């Protein structure tokens, strides 16, 4: 009886077969990076670039922050896609460990480059919310794009996919905002380019992505 049901199912699936274009992991990464940098550049063009960008690009601090945010964004992007394509999901826990390490490394990095004092902390706490808003604005398009990608794939561990997709978009926002924000203080970057963004990702992007993925799974 079950054998017959199986045969019938296979026949139905064969009849329903239509040509499909296989997805390529590397192509998805490049496409997301291209679309995200394009949308970020457009928003930055409206917000305006910092006047001393050329001078800043000669400094060590600019590039270490840039590389730290880029590495975090790239690891989250790779994890999101690898967890959404069967056969590519990490066999060990090392990649998840790496993404958590970067999450912990970033604040440590910004604390190290900041001149930490109570007055400095209070001063930075009072100014900087607009930076978080700008990061969220920049991250919106990359977040939507990555959700569209995931919807067309086969996400397996939906919590981790939702987690990494939100962070990938927001770290890209933080990365892009370095070209706009004039405040190079480590404490400012830690508070308004990192902590508030991480909280936003967990409180807003993670539940949204998780709900989308749950609906897709139930459909």
């Amino acid at each position, binding site marked *: 009886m079950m054998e017959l049901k199986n045969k019938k199912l296979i026949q139905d699936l064969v009849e*329903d077969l239509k040509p499909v274009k296989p997805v390529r992991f590397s192509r998805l990464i490049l496409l997301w990076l291209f679309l995200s940098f394009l949308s970020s550049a457009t928003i930055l063009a409206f917000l305006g670039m910092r006047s001393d960008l050329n001078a800043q690009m000669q400094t060590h601090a600019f590039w270490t922050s840039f590389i730290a945010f880029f590495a975090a964004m790239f690891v989250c992007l790779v994890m999101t896609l690898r967890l959404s394509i*069967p056969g590519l999901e990490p066999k060990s826990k090392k990649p998840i460990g790496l993404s958590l390490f970067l999450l912990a490394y970033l604040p440590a990095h910004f604390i190290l480059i900041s001149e930490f004092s109570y007055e400095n902390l209070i001063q930075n706490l009072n100014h900087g919310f607009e930076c978080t808003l700008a990061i969220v604005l920049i991250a919106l398009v990359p977040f939507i794009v990555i959700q569209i990608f995931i919807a067309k*794939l086969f996400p397996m561990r939906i919590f981790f996919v939702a987690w990494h997709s939100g962070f990938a978009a927001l770290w890209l926002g933080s990365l892009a905002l370095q070209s706009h924000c004039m405040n190079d203080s480590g404490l400012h970057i830690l508070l308004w380019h990192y902590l508030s963004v991480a909280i936003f990702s967990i409180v807003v992007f993670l539940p949204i992505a998780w709900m989308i993925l749950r609906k897709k799974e139930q459909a």
Partner: protein
Amino acid sequence: MQKWDIKNWSRLMGEAQKGNKIAYERLLNEISPLILKLILKKIHRYEWALDIQQDVLLTIHKARHTFDPKRDFQPWLYSIVRHKVFDHFRKYKRVWIMETANLDFVEMQADEEDTLAEEKKLFQDALNQLSEKQREAVQLVKVDGLSLQEAADQLQISLSAMKVRAHRGYEELKKIINENQN
């Protein structure tokens, strides 16, 4: 033992992605038994395994575009099977726990019934080894549940004679049972 034509599967899936129905049918027919085998390693209930097998076949169909023909087919397939089995455990965890608990209860009941049957057999064997008078007395009082007076009336003997017969019968019965058990 069944041999799987694993190397050919990547090519067949590549063809299926182009719309080749013959290749797709061949692939699905070839991988179906392997899928079932993989599921049965994790889930020992055949009817559940068959349900998951069908779910896996449907998922393969829906997610066929996520397979890159340049890669091996096996990790892709195993990943879907693993995910579906995990999904099944997650969805039916409560049912599974209840059914497992129910199975344990049924097993316990069956064990108790077996023990009871063994004890009955031991008792009956011992009863058959008693003398006829003692057997009658024990049967009426211990098995049929009559009082000593009722049993004495039925056998048409005095109450004191019934008491003696029954007492000797129990003693003999205990002795035989102990001997048989040892």
